[in-house]
């Protein structure tokens, strides 16, 4: 049976891919409950929802990675079973996943054609000449003419890696392209380029399923938006019907709390926590001057390559600067030394949660206590009860969704994992907290909770909070003051700048 309501709205012709009444259970959790969707040729269908809402499961089912418990799948109105990615590929469904399945040490040509190399007359002998030509053609049809084919992929910026990944998945016969959060590691500009690429692809008649956390980009490119909540399809809207408020309301099941507004703090008389003078590093930041006061949130905005990550790492002592000084509470500290920074009350939540933050094999408890274990021990022996209590306390304080601190860290959603990393530093009692992209890959609900937490920390507990971010709205929403970086320098420093001012300083010439 075909969902008639959806078909009535068909933009053109019949759907390429239909999922009908799909349900999937994982243990005690109903990941998907009777969800149906259709994708039409040349349209971009966006899936949104909080973490754990079921979007990734749905995308995985469409890509043949996960087999549903019940429900039917049709490709070109013919029922199919997708037991493996291979089945999906034969059916014309392509996945460009979150993980960017590429071989970083191999060159662009090889990655674009991975596994489908042209051979010479003698089988098994790769025809390198036509290989390069084929890769070039493939990229050219996507309008990507500025990629060096001989470059190894690990030397490419993240957005180009995504381009390569997408070019690779679009082998001949592709009808549907599924992309699962491709833009989450990208800056706004990079994400913009990726969206342009997706538009090019859908103009060629391919249907696209686009999963994203970023509502701006969803509203920018979606022809239709589907909202999932707790495994159920709760809302569907066309481009003209879609508004941010409606999406957020559907996602959360309640009205959006836009109440978070930075309460202007009179920080004139506040003590200076961190004083940075003429800081420069080998990896590109130069002549940075900064003041961070207790009781304020200072937002640092910059696009990828602006030096924003390097600033955070350097302030925390992970990078050694080539010039300049950092003073904490008026005293200069040893540069390039994490221990020295920690002993002076600095905490640091890194940008890459998975590679820089989590201990993937360990429990929630061990992930929380990591930076404070020495203080939770006596003569080198961990005091297990004290450790467990501390962890439980923070799980409760930040309402991390788990029954037991002994559960594996990977059993948590991205948002809750991030709250665990936050707990790690709150447990140390740090008075200066540096956060690099604290809500990257975090669902909206947790995002709001993290914002509230940061504001409470700064305004009530008088912690000095430095938020580095690639999300312009985030910076404007939570910061008391904003610094904008571009090309390793600070290009704007202002209380309450407008979005235009920030964008101008981040992308164009100096605004000052």
């Amino acid at each position, binding site marked *: 049976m075909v969902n008639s309501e959806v078909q009535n709205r068909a933009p053109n012709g019949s759907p390429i891919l239909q999922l009908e009444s799909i349900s999937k259970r994982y243990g005690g959790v109903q990941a998907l409950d009777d969800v149906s969707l259709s994708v039409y040729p040349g349209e971009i269908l966006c899936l949104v929802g909080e973490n754990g809402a079921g979007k990734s499961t749905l995308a995985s089912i469409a890509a043949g990675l996960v087999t549903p418990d019940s429900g039917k799948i049709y490709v070109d109105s013919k029922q199919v079973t997708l037991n493996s990615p291979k089945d999906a590929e034969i059916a014309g469904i392509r996945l460009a996943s979150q993980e960017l399945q590429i071989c970083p040490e191999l060159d662009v040509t090889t990655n674009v054609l991975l596994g489908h190399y042209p051979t010479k007359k003698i089988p098994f002998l790769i025809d390198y000449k036509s290989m390069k030509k084929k890769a070039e053609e493939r990229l050219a049809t996507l309008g990507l003419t500025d990629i060096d084919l001989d470059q190894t992929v690990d030397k490419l910026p993240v957005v180009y890696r995504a381009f390569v990944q997408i070019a690779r998945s679009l082998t001949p016969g592709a009808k549907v392209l599924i992309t699962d959060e491709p833009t989450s590691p990208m800056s706004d500009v990079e994400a913009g380029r990726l969206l342009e690429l997706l538009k090019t692809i859908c103009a060629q008649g391919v249907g696209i399923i686009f999963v994203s956390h970023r509502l701006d980009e969803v509203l920018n490119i979606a022809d239709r938006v589907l909202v999932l909540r707790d495994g159920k399809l709760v809302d569907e809207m066309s481009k003209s019907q879609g508004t941010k408020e409606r999406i957020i309301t559907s996602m959360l099941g309640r009205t959006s709390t836009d109440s978070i507004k930075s309460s202007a703090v009179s920080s004139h008389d506040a003590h200076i926590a961190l004083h940075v003078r003429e800081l420069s590093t080998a990896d590109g930041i130069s002549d940075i001057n900064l003041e961070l006061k207790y009781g304020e949130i200072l937002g640092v905005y910059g696009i990828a390559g602006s030096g924003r990550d390097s600033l955070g790492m350097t302030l925390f002592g992970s990078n050694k600067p080539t010039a300049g000084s950092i003073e904490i509470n008026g005293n200069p500290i040893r540069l390039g030394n994490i221990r020295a920074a920690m002993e002076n009350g600095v905490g640091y939540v890194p940008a890459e949660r998975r590679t820089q933050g989590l201990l*993937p094999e360990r429990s929630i408890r061990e992930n929380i206590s990591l*930076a404070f274990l020495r203080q939770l021990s006596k003569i080198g022996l961990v005091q297990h009860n004290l450790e467990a209590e501390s962890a439980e306390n923070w799980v409760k304080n930040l309402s991390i969704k788990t029954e037991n601190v002994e559960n594996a860290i990977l059993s948590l959603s991205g948002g809750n994992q991030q709250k665990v990393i936050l707990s790690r530093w709150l447990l140390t009692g740090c008075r200066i907290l540096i956060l690099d992209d604290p809500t990257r890959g975090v669902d909206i609900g947790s995002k709001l909770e993290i914002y509230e937490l940061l504001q409470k920390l700064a305004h009530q507990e008088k912690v000095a909070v430095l938020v580095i971010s690639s999300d312009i709205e985030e910076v404007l929403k939570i910061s008391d003051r904003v610094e904008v970086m571009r090309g390793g320098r600070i290009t704007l420093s202002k209380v309450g700048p407008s979005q235009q001012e920030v964008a101008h300083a981040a992308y164009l010439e100096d605004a000052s």
Partner: protein
Amino acid sequence: MNRLKRKNKTSNDVEKKGFDYGNLLRSQGLLLMLVLMVIFFRIQDPKYFFTFDNFITILVGATALGIMASAQTPLIISGGIDVSVGSVVALTTVVVGKLLASGMASWLVVVLSILIGTSIGVLNGFIVVQLGVNPFITTLGTMSFFSGLAFILSAGQTVAIRAKLFDWFLYTKPFHIPVLVIILVVVMGLALFIERKTVVGRNIFAIGGNREAARLSGISTKMLPLGLYVVSSFSASVAGVVLVCQLGSASPQLGTSYLLSVVTAVILGGTSLAGGRGSIAGTAIAVGILATLSNGFAHLQLPSYGQTTALGAALIIAVLVDQTSLKIKQKA
């Protein structure tokens, strides 16, 4: 792909208390293997195999391997590896033989030869941690270098060794338990204690699980790994002295049998070569399996190379069981 699956799990899925049940399952699988082996040998050799004396014989035979595996386990958990232990054993026994021949007091000989053996660990640690060379390649290199050196020093000769101190180690048996076995139990107990109870133990897991996260949490990711290489070589030189006691001879060929058996025991015990996961308990059982296997083969008068074949099969089966149980755990 993994991420997609993981993301859909919620906290209700994983019911865990205390520590790692997956680990327990693995070591139980191993324990089962050990029990089955004991039953098999008991049936084959009803008279002598299942006796207290033979139990002690097995433990004495396991001493050198057990001491080295206790040090290798945390090293592998931290993401390192030391394949040079065999050459340290060989060099230590040769040094003991040379120094004794020069008329030095036997206790001083023991101390000096252990110091010399341990210094190889300082070299390994320095090359891996400070110079950033891959640990497998580094220790493969030092293994080759020092086993060659052991041959040069000894001119390839095996020499008999007699010293009262060594006899004391071998023949003193408080409560019918040889000193060597007591040393083994103490060393393994200490390793277990450090793994389970101390900050150092936890930091070892953290470094092996995610080095960058550990570093960004203020954990020294250089001193601790360096220390683990030193401890590994220290354990190997102690094992060298233990072997001199047991065999009454020193030979540059002694270490060759330990070339891979130490790493094999650790992996068989469920420690992940990728780091971040493993246990001393698992290693202890694996050492028991290896020692029982060699003892049982001797009793049945089977050729010793059959033992290597059985060990190889056991290793692969154990790793398969390990991976399957992990998959089950992740799907649950």
